[in-house]
């Protein structure tokens, strides 16, 4: 059964068809939410809120890319969550070691299949990227997450953020420029594999 059939059945009230659509896109939705919110619990909440919102708005779906439509709902849920966080900031309960120190990279979010070195370098790189992402404005962060982390094309992103493609291009250029500046600042902390080209050139010189 293809996506259009599932959508048609879901619109008619078929919960099973709706849930199959949810399962198809939940990982993408959760990843987008996590990159925008930088918090797994809030990302989970935002994704669940987006699914509920999608269930309510399913009758308002008027064709086009279902994924883009769903990601737009996810993005809006993330913006709502960010606004809520600004109004009522919370302190996350990080797991602690026996010495009382906070574990910044909990084991449950690490990929168990990778080797320890790969896990270390990948997690450092991911942490560096996530730190830089957190410093971006929402509008730049959303476009960067959609294009570079979620792999959406410009047209889809324009559809998701409901702006012209020109806006996507300019926001992406600004977002990458800021990301590059940020990552250059912490480049020395990264493994050589992830350092930017210029730094490698400087080291060789």
């Amino acid at each position, binding site marked *: 059964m293809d996506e259009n059939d599932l959508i048609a059945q879901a619109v008619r009230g078929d919960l099973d068809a709706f849930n199959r659509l*949810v399962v198809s896109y939940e*990982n993408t939705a*959760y990843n987008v939410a996590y990159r925008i919110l930088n918090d797994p619990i809030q990302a989970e909440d935002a994704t669940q809120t987006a*699914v*509920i919102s999608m269930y*309510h708005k399913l009758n308002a779906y008027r064709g086009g890319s279902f994924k883009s439509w769903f990601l737009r709902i996810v993005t809006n849920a993330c913006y709502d969550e960010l606004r809520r966080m600004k109004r009522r900031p919370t302190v996350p309960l990080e797991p602690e070691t026996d010495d009382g120190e906070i574990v910044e990279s909990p084991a449950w979010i690490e990929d168990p299949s990778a080797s320890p070195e790969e896990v270390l370098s990948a997690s450092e790189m991911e942490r560096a*990227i996530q730190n830089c992402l957190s410093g971006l404005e929402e509008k730049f962060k959303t476009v960067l997450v959609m294009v*570079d982390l979620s792999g959406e094309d410009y047209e889809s992103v324009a559809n998701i953020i409901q702006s012209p493609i020109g806006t996507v291009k300019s926001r992406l250029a600004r977002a*990458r420029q800021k990301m590059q500046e940020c990552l250059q600042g912490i480049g020395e902390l990264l493994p050589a594999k992830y350092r930017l*080209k210029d730094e490698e050139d400087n080291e060789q010189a």
Partner: protein
Amino acid sequence: MSKLNHIHQADLEDLNAYLDGALSEKEKAIFQLKLAKSLPLQATLREYTFLRNALRSVPPRKAPRHFTLTTEEARALKPRFTFAPLFSLASMVSLMFLGILFASEWIFKNVSAPPAKQADAVVMNESAEAMPAVPQEHTAIEAKTDAPLLFNWGQGYAGGLGGGMGDGAVPMSSGMAIFDSSHNPMIINSALQPEYEISAEQPLSVTAEMMPAESAVPVPEERPLRMSAPAEKPAGYTGAIIWGLRPADEGKVLQVYPPMLASSAQPVNNQTEAETASVPAKGKDSLSAIVFEPWVKYLLGALTLIFGVTAYVLTRRFNRTF
């Protein structure tokens, strides 16, 4: 960073689009030509390629659980009927009526009235300039009182405001007699018809009964008035001017604006309040009067508040179920 400063923002956008394969063939060819000539652009392309690869190398996270809905959840999420939109609409309608009420009242008070006063002032000034000075004895009489002046349109022969009376009748003059509240007569002259003279057959007269007993000025019992007598608003007179009534309108309560003031309107001339109360009000005017009553505003304000709060409470209760 220094390289980026040498690159135009448009080129940077094209570079990103080139990197992502989002340029058309024509745009791609143009950009490649530009890229071949610019070393900073080539260096930036290398950096951005590396950045893009680094970003894309970040492993995707697996959702910690499924976000599917159970049958119970779906049933709870089904849209249910609620009165909240109705109350919300009622609140908005009440608010709209309240706004219209305040706006119309404000217009009556601040927009309609002042221009009329200004127009009167202009007319009076022009008339005063065109008129010769009032005789000294009249000025002295008028200066004694601050009671409003009464402009009488003439007696029964005027034939209505601006209306002709046919052959033989005396058309209404733009000149008019002025009376103060102590019934001391004075005559003003029309700038348009300064030489007009009222005929003796239908004289505009001031009788002795109209004069107060304490009046110090002797007034002839009855005499034809010559409208060419010069007059102007007496110096120092600060009272209001009341335009007189046609004889047919005497004893009636005329339209009062805003209508809310109608209830406090005093009977004209010597009509008693009891007589005024006996005058039947027209349906339209009475409705207007009710609308402008203060309690209507209070009622609308209260309804707006009650409906709005009810809509808010119902909406909150409805949303809490999700």
